[in-house]
């Protein structure tokens, strides 16, 4: 008999390859659908998260612009000369000017006088946000006449109404509106003196601008097209600096406003990265299992004469098709979610999230879906190349020489490269991408190692004395065709992401402190004399306001450090103490305990000084660093004439991020009580009305006490911060939910793994209950072990993130971790049981026929 020689030299027929790919997919469409759905969920998660991310980032940036109300502001306290005018007129597409200065305003109706901050405005500033006024249109109409916008608290304080007048300098202005909120206000100046806006054309006639007047000149610019602000400001800075002027950009204000912006963008990067990996987990686990199942078909085709390269290409084509369909559907689903969610939850969301189609997110989603599909399909497919047809048919295929193939390593490298590249798109930093990828790689290896150990341990542990069901359940973990590795990795990674997101978001939310919330202070009273302190506190309480803090402040200087004085410093250049340490006027306090914003880093806290001995003081960390102070170092303070020997008893870390008084040096009680001092009192006022009434009372009884009302300034910042914290919460909740969906999908695709064994067992007479127990045991073990591993990795991961990426103190929340552990373990078992439900409920033969 002649052997039928296969012509391996024949030309490849591309059309036929496509036909074969199509034909193969027809065999079991429901199974195919299951795999595609995993891809769809992965990509949908990614696209929706990305789209939200890009949108909220834009929203927050837009909101941040209201902090200064323009793209660029320039200010100084001198009139500008001709050459600078030329420069100032050349900037921006739209320009506004403002002169601001302190003055005394007079309310003719109530005959009241008060320090105010006049802001004379020309142009359409603010370009972002608005002068929020009552009535609403007053914010723009006041510029049309001799009219003014008056701060709300000020109006209340003098019982003034819209339509009354206010005298500024020599001119009377009609009060056109109440100013509720204004962009671009900053600092305490606006707090100490309430703002009154007037049109600049009426400034001259007030007669307030004369020689010797202290006026601040501000220029606001709007750019219609995006400009490189960094380059621009770098260019104009030398000229501005020479003229004694400062500039401010939105970015700059964001930085000085606080770390929350940075936290948010870092968090969004993290979310982006997690989404990317969720997408990978979804796609990769689906493709991996799918292709592995196809090995038998490939082997048969090979036996029938299909070339290895042809078989390879047939399935590659199929995978690309599946990946494409899954990714496009996923992208569509993700976009739909992104559009539907805000509409659905409209009534619950405190802010509107803009919903723009993000082509960037869609593009990345589809690209990622296809590439990941191909890369993960390649892993099993390349091994098909080298293996003889018969070999592929053998069950031992899985173990056979997989690691030797150099191409395999190439694919691994490609996958890593790809993840680094996509991470870069999210993080915008190669170093960060590298570290993140490395972190994932380590997490992956830990999970793989745990899976491997588990299999080893099971093989050793299981023995005949166990009950049959337990033996079967656990043996499934290491037998050929086991799903231990793949499930461990996908469940473990998903759990880890969910956990990390949860931990980090709760740490971040803890950092966002709103002035309006609870007992954050938003009003500061200072220059309270010692003789007034009790009366002021009593008055505060009488008005129903909390005394959040009341501290004495003593001004002093450092005379000697370790026996060296400022004079020694000039003579001896080897003394490494900056001159400023001696030159600075320290405002210190004395008390017997640490405040809640302080933490000892070294030494011991001593709350009471012993008479006649050196005074034990506590020094703030940064001062200690600057002056290179160590515990026990001798100091001599000059307390307004009195030399006071002291020593460094402790070094404190101070959280400066709170509206409260913090100090570089804290004295113990028992020494400074009689020294000249004044008191500062912090309180929280809940509304303009309360603030006005309180200020009224203070001014009446204690005219020397100055009140800083930060309410107006903080409300602008507050709105922004609450939006940030809301965004963080929303994004993490959404990502966690999608993470769980992806997790479910990736467990779900293991549906067909166990079908043949279960059917076989049933045919041999196993009861439903027995199969049920075997499956439950396997999934319970897999689910709980991988969830536990994932959570442990998440603890380490979030610690690293908190410390190195966010640079905030790490706090652990154990309870959510425990809850998550149970949720994921139980979820895995439930899905595992659902997977085998078909086997349990239907006759074995029926299942064999439909799924074979």
């Amino acid at each position, binding site marked *: 008999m002649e052997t039928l020689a296969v012509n391996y030299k024949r030309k490849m027929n591309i059309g036929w390859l496509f036909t074969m790919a199509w034909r193969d997919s027809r065999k079991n469409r429901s199974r195919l659908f299951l795999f595609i759905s995993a891809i769809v969920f992965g990509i949908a998660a990614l696209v929706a998260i990305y789209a939200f991310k890009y949108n909220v980032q834009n929203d927050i940036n837009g909101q941040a612009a209201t902090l200064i109300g323009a793209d660029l502001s320039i200010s100084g306290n001198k009139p500008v000369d001709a050459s600078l005018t030329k420069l100032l007129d050349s900037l921006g597409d739209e320009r506004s000017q403002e002169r601001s200065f302190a003055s005394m305003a007079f309310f003719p109706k109530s005959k009241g006088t008060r320090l105010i901050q006049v802001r004379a405005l020309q142009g359409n500033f603010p370009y972002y946000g608005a002068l929020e006024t009552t009535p609403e249109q007053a914010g723009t109409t006041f510029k049309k006449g001799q009219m003014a916008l008056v701060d709300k608290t000020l109006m209340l304080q003098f019982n003034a109404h819209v339509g009354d007048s206010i005298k500024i300098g020599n001119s009377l202005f009609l009060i056109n509106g109440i100013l509720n909120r204004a962009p671009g206000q*900053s600092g305490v100046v606006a707090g100490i003196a309430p703002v009154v806006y007037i049109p600049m054309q009426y400034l001259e006639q007030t007669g307030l601008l004369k*020689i010797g007047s202290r006026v601040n000149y501000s220029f606001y610019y709007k750019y219609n097209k995006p400009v490189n602000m960094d380059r621009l400001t770098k260019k104009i800075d030398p000229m501005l600096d020479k003229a004694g002027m400062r500039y401010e950009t939105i970015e700059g204000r964001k930085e000085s406003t606080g770390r929350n912006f940075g936290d948010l963008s870092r968090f969004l990067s993290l979310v982006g990265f997690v989404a990317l990996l969720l997408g990978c987990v979804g796609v990769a686990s689906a493709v991996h299992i799918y292709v592995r199942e196809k090995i038998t078909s490939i082997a048969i085709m090979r036996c029938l004469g299909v070339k290895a390269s042809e078989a390879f290409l047939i399935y590659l084509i199929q995978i690309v098709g599946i990946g494409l369909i899954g990714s496009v559907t996923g992208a569509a689903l993700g976009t739909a979610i992104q559009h539907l969610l805000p509409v659905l939850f409209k009534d619950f969301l405190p802010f509107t999230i803009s919903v723009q189609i993000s082509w960037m997110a869609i593009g990345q989603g589809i690209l990622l879906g296809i590439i990941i599909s191909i890369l993960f399909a390649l892993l099993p497919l390349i091994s098909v190349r080298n293996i003889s047809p018969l070999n592929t048919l053998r069950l031992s295929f899985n173990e056979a020489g997989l690691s030797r193939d150099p191409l395999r390593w190439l694919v691994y490298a490609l996958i890593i490269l790809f993840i680094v590249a996509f991470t870069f798109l999210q993080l915008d930093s190669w170093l960060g991408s590298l570290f993140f990828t490395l972190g994932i790689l380590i997490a992956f290896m830990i999970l793989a190692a745990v899976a491997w150990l588990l299999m080893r341990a099971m093989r050793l542990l299981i023995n005949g004395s166990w009950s049959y069901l337990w033996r079967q359940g656990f043996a499934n973990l290491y037998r050929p065709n086991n799903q231990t590795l793949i499930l461990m990795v996908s469940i473990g990674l998903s759990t880890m992401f969910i956990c990390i997101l949860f931990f980090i978001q709760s740490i971040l939310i803890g950092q966002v402190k709103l002035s309006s919330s609870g007992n954050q202070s938003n009003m500061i009273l*200072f220059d309270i004399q010692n003789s007034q302190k009790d009366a002021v506190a009593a008055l505060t309480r009488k008005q129903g306001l909390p005394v959040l803090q009341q501290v004495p402040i003593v001004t002093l200087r450092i005379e000697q450090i370790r026996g060296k004085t*400022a004079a020694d410093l000039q003579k001896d250049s080897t003394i490494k103490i900056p001159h400023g340490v001696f030159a600075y*006027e320290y405002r210190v306090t004395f008390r017997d305990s640490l405040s809640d914003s302080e933490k000892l880093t070294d030494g011991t806290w001593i709350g009471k000084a012993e008479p006649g001995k050196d005074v034990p003081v506590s020094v703030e960390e940064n001062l200690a660093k600057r002056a290179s102070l160590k515990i026990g170092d001798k100091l001599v303070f000059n307390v*307004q*004439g009195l030399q006071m020997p002291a020593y460094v008893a402790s070094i404190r870390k101070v959280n400066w991020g709170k509206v409260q008084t913090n100090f570089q040096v804290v004295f113990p009680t028992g020494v400074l009580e009689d020294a000249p001092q004044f008191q500062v009192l912090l309180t929280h006022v809940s509304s303009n009305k309360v603030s006005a009434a309180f200020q009224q009372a203070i001014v009446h009884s204690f005219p020397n006490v100055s009140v800083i009302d930060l309410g107006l300034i903080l409300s602008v910042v507050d709105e922004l911060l609450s939006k940030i914290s809301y965004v963080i919460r929303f994004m993490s909740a959404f990502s966690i939910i999608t993470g769980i969906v992806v997790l479910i999908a990736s467990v779900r695709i293991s549906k067909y793994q166990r079908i043949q064994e279960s059917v076989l067992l049933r045919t041999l007479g196993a009861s439903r209950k027995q199969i049920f127990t075997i499956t439950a045991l396997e999934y319970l073990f897999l689910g709980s072990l991988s969830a536990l591993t994932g959570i442990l990795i998440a603890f380490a991961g979030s610690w690293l993130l908190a410390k190195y990426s966010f640079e905030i103190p790490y706090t652990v929340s154990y309870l959510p971790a425990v809850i998550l552990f149970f949720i994921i373990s139980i979820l895995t078992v439930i899905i595992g049981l659902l997977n085998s439900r078909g086997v349990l409920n239907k006759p074995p033969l029926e299942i064999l026929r439909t799924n074979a």
Partner: protein
Amino acid sequence: MHQFKITFLLFAVVALAACGQKKKPADNQTPAAAVVATADSSSQKTIVFFGNSLTAGYGLDDPSNSFPGVIKNKIDSLKLPYKVVNAGLSGETTAGGNGRIGWLLKQKIDVFLLELGANDGLRGIPVDGTSKNLQSIIDKVKAKYPDAKIVLLGMMVPPNMGADYSNKFKAVFPALASKNKVSLVPFLLKDVAGVPALNQADGIHPSVQGAKIAAQNVWVVLKDLL
């Protein structure tokens, strides 16, 4: 974080309201001498400059360039038997000064120069209060050292505060001086205020040159008392 800025600004304001920002130390000539001075006061007489950042020499690299420093140099070069104590404190208001004066009166005072009120003016504190506090300081000094010669240094607020307030404020000092029969320097910053070249970048604290002129303004009155 915004709070950080506010904390920081609180300090700035406390200092600024004091009419200073953070002042540099006035070296050893500062009130450091207060206690020490009692010892050797037998041989030397003591001049105390009691004031705010203008006295303390806020913002000057070398606090001996402040106007009390300039006067001290003058006294030293004339070999007059006086010891100069700079008791300037940035941010000091008249209320603060009134609270602090007891601490200073522990030492013998022969000539007392009172330079306070600028911070009250910049904060728009009602002038009655300022006047009352200054009166109380004068009373306390007189009560303890009836023989001490007192010089009141007059101050003005920038025109942007409005004519009503500035006029009332300006009038406080001559009125007090005549009422208490003490010497008066009509305006400490005469020929200095409002001249950019004579002031620091903040536009309110005199530069080295400005302090020299201020010292001259004071010296015209002070020299007759020594």
